[in-house]
């Protein structure tokens, strides 16, 4: 089944997102299937260290001359940039506020106005649990979607959902800011699974290890056209027991990852999680019955590189 969209969806995309999307697609074309990594260790993170790691990961992921050059290409100053966090697991396994602050500061230096940078999660409650303060911040506005969804569902393949208006209407460009962790059903919860948090009914789409549902969600034009960047806080990663925080299943991966490919960061996360699981004598995700098959489905849709073996890792 092919995606179906309302006229309103198409008008929004044509009017708001396409010019920026075309620019960003051109920028991404040269760097597909690349994941940029920068080392970042330690539980106590200084803002300066976080910013340095983020800058190095951005340059490694894009091949740009500088982090600001990378961001200017991906996010022209006219864009309204939404940064979707994954805070389900609370402070233990959510993006660190210092890294999010650093990304927002870089976006501002790249020319995006403070009022055009929106950091959001499903609810203000989840943001607070993860250490964020909803409201106006120095470099961005922080808010929960809470109940603000489109009034009508939009269909893409097997899914039919009301999208957060932040995603469908307000933002013209999107960043997934996730973590590197195991997911009981999807296998991997990194950059892509984070987008389940922008639809009203994610609980309907966990059958079959989220395949093809997650792939169908990613190919909806709201996401396919607007998501330009994935950032993963991999300072600490979790190889089992997700999506909740399980301290005994975490390990110090010690990196920040970035990718402009919609799937590559997740494919890389799959690889490093399987590596850690094998080191611990645990079965791989596939052997445990939850391979992230949705990655191959999404790759089949032409959304990016979902094969862990084909992802190029560039150290920043």
């Amino acid at each position, binding site marked *: 089944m092919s995606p179906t969209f309302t006229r309103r969806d198409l008008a929004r995309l044509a009017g708001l997102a396409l010019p920026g999307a075309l620019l960003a697609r051109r920028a991404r074309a040269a760097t597909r299937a690349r994941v940029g990594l920068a080392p970042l260790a330690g539980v106590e993170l200084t803002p300066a260290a976080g910013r340095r790691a983020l800058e190095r990961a951005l340059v490694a992921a894009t091949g740009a001359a500088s982090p600001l050059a990378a961001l200017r290409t991906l996010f022209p100053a006219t864009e309204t940039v939404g940064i979707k966090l994954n805070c389900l697991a609370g402070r233990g396994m959510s993006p660190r506020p210092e890294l999010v602050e650093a990304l927002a500061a870089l976006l501002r230096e790249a020319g995006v106005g403070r009022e055009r940078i929106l950091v959001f999660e499903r609810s203000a409650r989840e943001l607070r649990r993860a250490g964020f303060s909803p409201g106006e911040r120095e470099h961005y506005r922080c808010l929960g979607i809470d109940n603000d969804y489109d009034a009508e569902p939009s269909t893409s393949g097997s899914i*039919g959902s009301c999208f957060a208006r932040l995603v469908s209407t307000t933002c013209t460009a999107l960043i997934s800011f996730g973590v590197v962790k195991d997911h009981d059903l999807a296998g991997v919860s990194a950059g892509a699974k984070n987008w389940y948090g922008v639809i*009203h009914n994610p*609980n*309907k789409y966990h059958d079959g290890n989220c395949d093809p549902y997650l792939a169908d969600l990613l190919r909806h034009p709201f996401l396919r056209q607007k998501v330009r960047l994935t950032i993963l806080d991999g300072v600490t990663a979790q190889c089992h027991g997700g999506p*909740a925080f399980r301290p005994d299943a975490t390990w110090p991966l010690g990196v920040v990852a970035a990718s402009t490919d919609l799937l590559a960061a997740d494919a890389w996360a799959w690889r490093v999680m399987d590596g850690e699981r094998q080191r611990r004598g645990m079965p791989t995700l596939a052997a445990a019955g939850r391979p992230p098959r949705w990655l191959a489905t999404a790759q089949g849709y032409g959304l990016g590189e979902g094969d862990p073996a084909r992802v190029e890792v560039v150290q920043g």
Partner: protein
Amino acid sequence: MMHRRAFLGAGAACLLSGGAAAGQRSRPPDLHLEGREASWYRKLPDRRVECQLCPRACQVADQERGGCGVRENRRGLYYTLVHSLPCTVHLDPIEKKPFFHVLPGARALSWATAGCNVECKFCQNWEISQFRPEQVASFPMPPETLARQARQAGAPLLSATYSEPVVFWEYVRDTALAARALGVRTTVVSNGYIQEAPLKEVLPHLAAFKVDLKSFREAFYREVLRGELKPVLRALEVIRAAGVWLEIVVLLIPTLNDSEAEVRDLARWVKGHLGAEVPVHFTRFHPTYRLTNLPPTPLATLERAHDAARAEGLAYVYLGNLPGHPAENTLCPGCGEMLIRRAGFAVRENRLRRGACPACGRPIPGVWA
């Protein structure tokens, strides 16, 4: 601006005389859902649980919810988030459910919470059934209050309906118990997609059960609502065997489940497994939710289904969503006498005498007093 789903919730308590105060209706969007431990689940290793309420048998990790969206795993304990938290409460004629053989003309205090265990692409109430409890305006109303409200409103019946009572099954059970103590009877309007144990546990407390039989084809269940037919058929047999009054509704959707062959298969199964005297309602589809590309069911299709089911031997076959159609009426299957004349949800005439035909004396099954 108010969305339709907010309007549904906001309108709920307004219809109750002396109902919930305005301050009780709306939940702030960020309000924490307290929840209470669910009755039907088992614990698995790694703080996972398996829900034992519906045949989906969701295995749910810590911090996650089941497919219904209203049950949540919290550190290895499974919680229902909607007990005592309806999003809509209305006084309806019992004919609206529809029950045509239950206290004709009576009013039923009808309630629902958010959530459903399937996703019908044609759902008429998707604005509550396909949302999580924190996404719709809900208000606290314990079982005792619900039962008391029914009694105060002069309603002899309660009806768990609108979304899917299976997902708030503990609330249904506790309300039925509270209502019985006040002389109010409880009915359920459900998809019948429920495991046997929880169904059997609650059935003794119910007066009537209406099942939406979505189709008589597994493929339809799989493709259009991501459910299964077989467990629904089993539930129908369990309800019938328990002696709880049962009626069946089939929404006929053009091209998807409206073939005469399917209708005849369904009618034969009902007659063979449940008995010819179980009422079957064929109702008209209207395009909505994710199925807006199909037209409303033609009248001819509905009448053909009616005639086919009658020809297969079913005694009480009705047509719905067709106000004024003769097939809304109850006729005596013995002598053809008009017994109950209806117009939409209104009962115009009830000629039953102590549950029997006044002309030939044939007993008519149902809950009449």
